[in-house]
């Protein structure tokens, strides 16, 4: 376990813990996930503050009033922050992986997702292509399931049109 015989270790007790969870959606998450199944990214809006939130919120964190309407976010937006994960975290997809927080058109906050279709063989060059300020489009997978991975981001092509490989 320690792999270092120089340490004065007297031994180790090894344990592996598996815990299972079922995270209940509630109304707001449930509505968002149902929207994804219909290829819609649904945000909540507070009429008092005029803030539009993604991820959607039940209550406006500025006015402390209930968010009183659902609005559909645009399927294009601007990258506010981005990175390329090269190594060090074994998440659900093998690195390298590009992720970005994107503020979709019509929404005040940014929501994170993968950036697909990017050549990651040169990390420096790829980072320049997804730097903050870059516009991207939303692309849905062929059969949305009602989960956050139903969509991802894709760079716009040079003529400004969405580089869509599938989806709507």
């Amino acid at each position, binding site marked *: 376990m*320690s792999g270092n015989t120089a340490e004065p270790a007297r031994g180790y007790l090894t344990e592996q813990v598996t815990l299972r969870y079922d*995270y209940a959606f509630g109304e707001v998450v449930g509505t968002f996930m149902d929207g994804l199944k219909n290829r819609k990214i649904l945000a909540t809006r507070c009429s008092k503050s005029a803030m539009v939130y993604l991820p959607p919120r039940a209550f406006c*964190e500025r006015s402390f009033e209930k968010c009183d309407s659902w609005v559909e976010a645009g399927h294009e937006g601007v990258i506010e922050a981005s*990175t390329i*994960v090269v*190594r*060090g975290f074994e998440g659900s997809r093998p690195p390298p992986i590009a992720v970005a927080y994107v503020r979709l058109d019509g929404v005040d906050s940014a*929501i994170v997702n993968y950036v697909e279709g990017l050549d990651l063989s040169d*990390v420096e060059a790829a980072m320049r292509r997804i730097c*903050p300020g870059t516009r991207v489009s939303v692309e849905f997978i062929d059969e949305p399931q009602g989960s956050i991975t139903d969509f991802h981001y894709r760079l716009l092509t040079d003529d400004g049109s969405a580089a869509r490989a599938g989806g709507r």
Partner: protein
Amino acid sequence: MPEVVAVLGTYQSQFKLRHPELTFVEQAQHAAFGALQAAGMTPDDIDAIVFSLAPTAFMGVADADRWSIDHIFGAGKPMMRVHTGGATGGSVVHAAHALVRSGMFRTVMIVGAERISETPDAQKVLNQIFDPFYEKEMPLQTITTVALMANAYMQRHAITQEHLAHLVVRQRRSAMNNPHAHLKGNITIADVMASPMISYPFKRFDCCPRSSGSAAMIVGNLDSVREHQSKPAFINGVGSVSDSNWIGDRIVPTAHADFIDWKLMALAGRECFRRAGITDPINQIQVAEVYDAFSIQGLIQLEQLGFCSSGTAFRLECDDAWDIDGMVAVCPSGGTLCSNPIAVSGLVRAIEAANQVMGTAGGHQIPNVRNAVATAVGGIAQFLSCTVFGADIMKEH
């Protein structure tokens, strides 16, 4: 009248990958015993205990404050655990400060321990702090989320990876004078640049290590100072603030406090400095132990605390402004970048700042320190704290 609060004694262990010769609770005991010894006190002199304990999934025993009670001489005393992630060690100082300042207790011992390498799944633990519906699926943890912010900051202010590397070289060099530090040594900017990329722009050398270790600090009122400590450090200013959980709310034009420039730290700093009577930080403060788990973090805080203007700290870094003989000694201990026992890292910043004021910092002591500032950062910088330690009592706070 609120009580004056002072540091009576401190202890920190050596920080390294593992302490296989001890258990977690024995590490906490070493710290409690060490701080009592430093203050010339016994467990009977302690009125209450604040336990510094962040996520326990790293070391495996859930909520190990209970496991630790006997080892830190807690049975029979009031004891509370404080947990604000990486900011825990700053929050415990503020909690203990409030307990003494209010007059509720004469003396309070702050103690904690950490052993992150007890699990090889530390990054999985850190991914568990994210919202399960919208964020946890992504490769988000502390490294990648700070990297997201760093890329935007560096683009905004034209800061390069070499700027960051300059800081890494300085702090690893400073850490050579600190027997407690985990990572240390004479490295070059080329070494930093050649270390493997983790999450752009952070390479391995831009990131803190996973450290094991323990720390403790005893604070008390003026009566206890007269009894136990001829050269205390007075806790003259405290300020803390939290922000939205949602990173996506904090990097957009409508942000409450822009995360890219860490505007939140200006709020914590303003409150802290007002209490401590600090109006001109660069001339009144000689040491800044800012919490820097990653190379980008510490200097951004200096900007927000008013040591320099926004976007200039890394250029000043390359002029050696923050070296041990510069304008302000920034992390002469090597900082969190060189040792990160998460549960007590903020406490170690506070201990380092207090020790500099008390003249007990050892090989990395900076001469003539009248004021030193310590910060702590928790979550994805959702929890920030700022504390000023002074050689003189600041009465009007």
